[in-house]
Every structure is written in structure tokens, then in C-alpha cells.
């Protein structure tokens, strides 16, 4: 169980990081989503792994699971869902506007500007 959860977090994070380091919007956003999944599972694990135990006090129950990480994960899911929607819309706008879906700054910014400056000086 521990091994499964730990390796799930690890694999998700590794894949997410790899994709985030790509240059184009789509893989980067995919990577971001994978990273948020990884962090959600990680948050779950931060309250210790307990199977089949209730989070709320009941009569005759000895073992409980920690309810707080579940509340945290819920918040994190909602926020990351909203954020993903926002980034998809902004990225779509940027792509449709400039017909280019690279996330880095365009390289040609640098060269033409150097010329006039030296002329003036």
C-alpha cells in the first residue's frame, strides 16, 4: 500500500515535471495537471494511510482516519481545476492570437532592437 502510493506520487511527479519542461503549451498544461494529481495523492498520504476507517466520530469505533487532509485535498482539487481552466483559456487566446503555441519568449525580440540604439548613440 505504502509502496503503491509512494510510487504513484513519484511517477506522476516525474512525468509531470518532464512535460512541464517542454516548450509547447499542450504538454506543459498536461504536465501541470499531472503535478496537481500527484500533489493531491501526496496530501492524502500526509494524514497517514488508513483503510476502511471512518473520518467522523462514531460509537464503538477505535480507529479513525484523519479528516483534515481530505478537506485539504478537496480545496486543492477545486482550486487546481479552476486554475487549469484559466490557463487553458489564456493559452488558447495566446495561440489563436499569434498562431504559435510556444511558452517561451520569441527569440527574434533581441536582434532588431540593437541596431537603432547604436545609430542614435
Amino acid at each position, binding site marked *: 500500500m505504502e509502496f503503491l502510493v509512494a510510487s504513484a506520487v513519484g511517477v506522476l511527479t516525474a512525468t509531470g515535471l518532464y512535460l*512541464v519542461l517542454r516548450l509547447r503549451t499542450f504538454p506543459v498544461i498536461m504536465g501541470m495537471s499531472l*503535478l496537481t494529481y500527484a*500533489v493531491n495523492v501526496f496530501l492524502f498520504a500526509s494524514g*497517514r494511510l488508513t483503510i476502511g476507517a471512518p473520518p467522523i466520530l462514531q460509537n464503538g469505533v477505535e480507529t479513525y482516519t484523519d479528516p483534515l487532509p481530505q478537506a*485539504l485535498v478537496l*480545496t486543492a482539487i477545486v482550486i487546481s481545476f479552476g486554475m487549469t481552466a484559466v490557463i487553458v483559456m489564456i493559452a488558447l487566446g*495566446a495561440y489563436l492570437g499569434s498562431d504559435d503555441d510556444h511558452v517561451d519568449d520569441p527569440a527574434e525580440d533581441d536582434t532588431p532592437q540593437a541596431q537603432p540604439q547604436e545609430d542614435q548613440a
Partner: protein
Amino acid sequence: MSHWIILPIVLPAFLAPFIVLAARYHIGIQRAVSVAGGLALVAIAAGLAWQASDGTITLYQLSDWAAPFGIVLVGDRLSTLMVLLTAVLSLFVLLYAIGSGWDERGRHFHALYQFQLMGIMGAFLTGDLFNLFVFFEVLLIASYGLMIHAGGNVRLRAGVQYVLFNLLGSTLFLFALGSIYAETGTLNMADLAGRAQMIGADATAGIRIAAVLLLLVFAIKAAVVPLHFWLPSSYAEAPGPVAALFAIMTKVGAYAIIRVFTIVFPPDLSVTADLHGALLLPAALVSLTIGMVGVLAARKLDRLVAFSVIGSMGMVMVAISLFTQVAIAAALYYIVHSTLAAGALFLIADLVRAGRADLELRAQPPVAGAALTAAAFFVAAIAMVGLPPLSGFVGKLLILDAAYGTEHVIWIWAVVLSVSLVSLVGFSRAGSVIFWKAESIERPEEAEVTPRPAGLSYVAVGGLLGLLALHTVFAGKIYDYMDRTSAQLFAPAPYIAKVIGTPGKMTRPKPEKAEGADKALTGDGETDAQPTEEH
């Protein structure tokens, strides 16, 4: 329990939907509501700061739930100071946005602005790490909207980078929170302070990783090199008033570092003691250097200002990384100065843009109102570079003084003094090319004469510069206050006692009431469990 302390969060939270729902198509009403809200915020913030000025710590328990379980807002000297700073800056920036007509160039400017304020105020007031995350997200999601306000391809593109970088930061923040919770079982800052001290010397790996992760997250917000890459493009491409408001956002990161690393992981906590100096000071010195060299290297005025923000954050971080009472007081003085100066500079850059084709640093024909703009730039640049007589000089002096006698004094003095020269050259070059050289260029015949910027814009810029002047004139008194603020930070016992000790509706003041409290929580009786027992 007084409810005033929650107003800085609730007021913008109500104004924003009101603006969207009721005044959607009426820019006049939006402006009136927004300015009225801004004025009210300044008044409330001033009241809170006055309340906290004698060292009182105000605690607000939402729904009256007691601290480690409920959500709390805490107002001490530091938080109320930052809230007041935000309120004042936002009012002037708002006036500029109205005067320059930026708020008409896209929709929902005022609503997003209010949401942004709500997030910033919440981040300063919260006493809980997870709520800090939530308020970070609130301020970020509003800032995404403001950042791409008025649209345009370049801005959208810069917006994508900005959003992605901050999403990564948020994910990292969650990892940090998860590790802290796994190690300590709480996320309330005052509660964490006690728990962190209980961790034995043989099991420090987890908490050290968590502390470093947290430091990383706040360093991203504070744009400390090498985590600064998001800042230059996004601040330069953001609309002028928005960039000016963003001047406070880097300070949110600085605030969070000060708060967490004085209360939760104080410098004398042996578990994390060697992290601050080892990590923060070199990064701060490098960002100071990179920022000011960036000022010299910038080809556009807006990039220049953005790099000067990185440089001034580096200066703040140098002071913070020393983690002594004197140094934190100097850092706080410099934070106020650098917020006002950066805000004014972004507004001035926008004023310059008003008559020119672009903001590139080469001579273009003079524009209407250039004399006044040039004067404002001169004053703001003096403040930002840190020349006498303005507050930048005082702030730098305080930081140098705080560094004197520490083991890294040579490094700090050498870097601070030499990059000051670099930034001086950078700002002088920009000012002389943009304002003086303009006179030597003939205005082309066919060019239209652009009208001079609105008076209200100058009022806003002048107001910020006036505050800078006041910050200099009353430097002695303000520094005394900062020193007391810093003293409060380095003696966190009253803060912790206030947050943890104040009873809420489920706490059991007397043994006989305990049964009732248990029943209320579990719904039914007798049997089990102590509900207030920790996880």
C-alpha cells in the same frame, strides 16, 4: 470580539460581485464604488494599524471555533502595517487607472481589482498556513485576469508564462504543506511553533525538507533569483496600473518569509537553524546584482522598472536573511519604501508610454506633459536607486548598518554599494535618453499631437511620491515603529498564547462543561472520545 479585522477581506469580497452584477455596464458607478471601497479600506486599515500599534494582538476566530481547529485571522503590528500599505498603494493606483482610462480598455477591471485586494489582505491577515495558500490562490487568480486586462498577443503570451510559473509555485506550496502536516499534524502557525520545537534532533529530515520547500515557494513569490524568471516579462507586459499594484505582490512573499521564519522556524530553532543564512543570503545577493545589472541592460523602460523591482527585492532579502531584530526592522522600512517607489515607477513608465510609440530606450520626439513626467521620474529614480535625500538612501543605510558586525559584512557591503552604482548608471541613462535627448529630435510633420495625460494620473503619481517624501521625513519615527514590530516578531510568545489560548465555542473552560461539549460534537452521548484531541 470585534469584527473590524475581517473587514479588509469581506469588504472587497462584497464590492467585487456588486460591481459585476449591478454595475456591469456603468463605468461611472463602478469607479465610484471602487474608489469609495478604496477609501474605506484605507480608513479600516489605518484603524487596525492604530489598534495594533501599542502591541495588541487581535485575534478573530471565524464562527468562533478555537485556534488549531478553526480558521483564525491575526492582526499584529506586521500584518496591519502590510494591510495599511496595500490599502494606500491600491487607492493611488486605482486613481491612476481611472485617470488614465485603463479601466475602460477591457471589462471587469474594478471587480478583479477588488478580488485582488481581498486576496492580498487575506494573505497578510491569516494565521494559518493553508489559508495562506488559499488567499495566495485568490490573489493569483485575480491577478491572472488583471495581467491580461485589455488583451493583446504579447500580453497574453506573457500571461501564459506568468500563470504557468505561479501554478508550479502553488503545486510546490501544496507539497510543502503536505510535508509539514505529515511531520507535525497541524497547519496553524502558532500551533506549528510549538510542534516544531518538539521534533527531536534525530528525525529532522522531513521538517527540514518542508521548511526548504516553503522557503522556495515564498522565494518564487518574492522573485528571488534564480526563481525570478516570471517577473520581468509579466510585469513589463501587464497594464501600467496593474504592474504598480503587483509591486505589493512580491512583498507578500517577503512577508510570508518573515512571518513563517520568525514564528514557526525561528532562527534559534536548532532543527532548521542553518538554512536561512546558507540559502537565503547568497540568493539575495545574486538577485540584488542580477536586478540592478538588468536595470543597466534593459532596452525598454518597463523592463528596466521590472528589473529594479527584482533588485529591490534582493535588497529586502539581504536584510531578511540576516534574521536579527535590527535587520528585520530595516527590511520592513525598505519594504514600504520599495513598494511605493516601484508602484510610482510603473505608473510613470505608463505615463511615458502615453505619448510614445513604445518604451524603448532611444530618443523619440518630446510629448505633451513630458516636463512633469520627467520630474516625477527623476524623483522616483532617486528613491529607487537609493541616493540621498529620499527614503531609498535611508533604507539602504539601515540595511548596511544592520549588516555591520555580522560575518558576511564584507560581501553585503561590497555588493550593495557596487550595484547601487550600476543601478544609478542604468537609471541615469534611461532618464537622459528618454527625457533629455527627446528635445534633439524633430517631431515629424504628419504626427498627431497626443494630449497630455489626465490630471488625476499625476495626482496618483504625486501622491505616491509624496508618501515617499513623508517616509523619508519621518524616517526616525517610522523606524522606531518598525523596530517595535520586529521586536514583536522576535518575541512570539504573546502571539502564540493569544492564538492558542483564546477559547472558542468547543473549548472546555471547566471540567463539568466537557460532557456538554462532547455531546454537541458527536451528536449522541456518553461513550467516546475527546473531540478536541489531536488527529
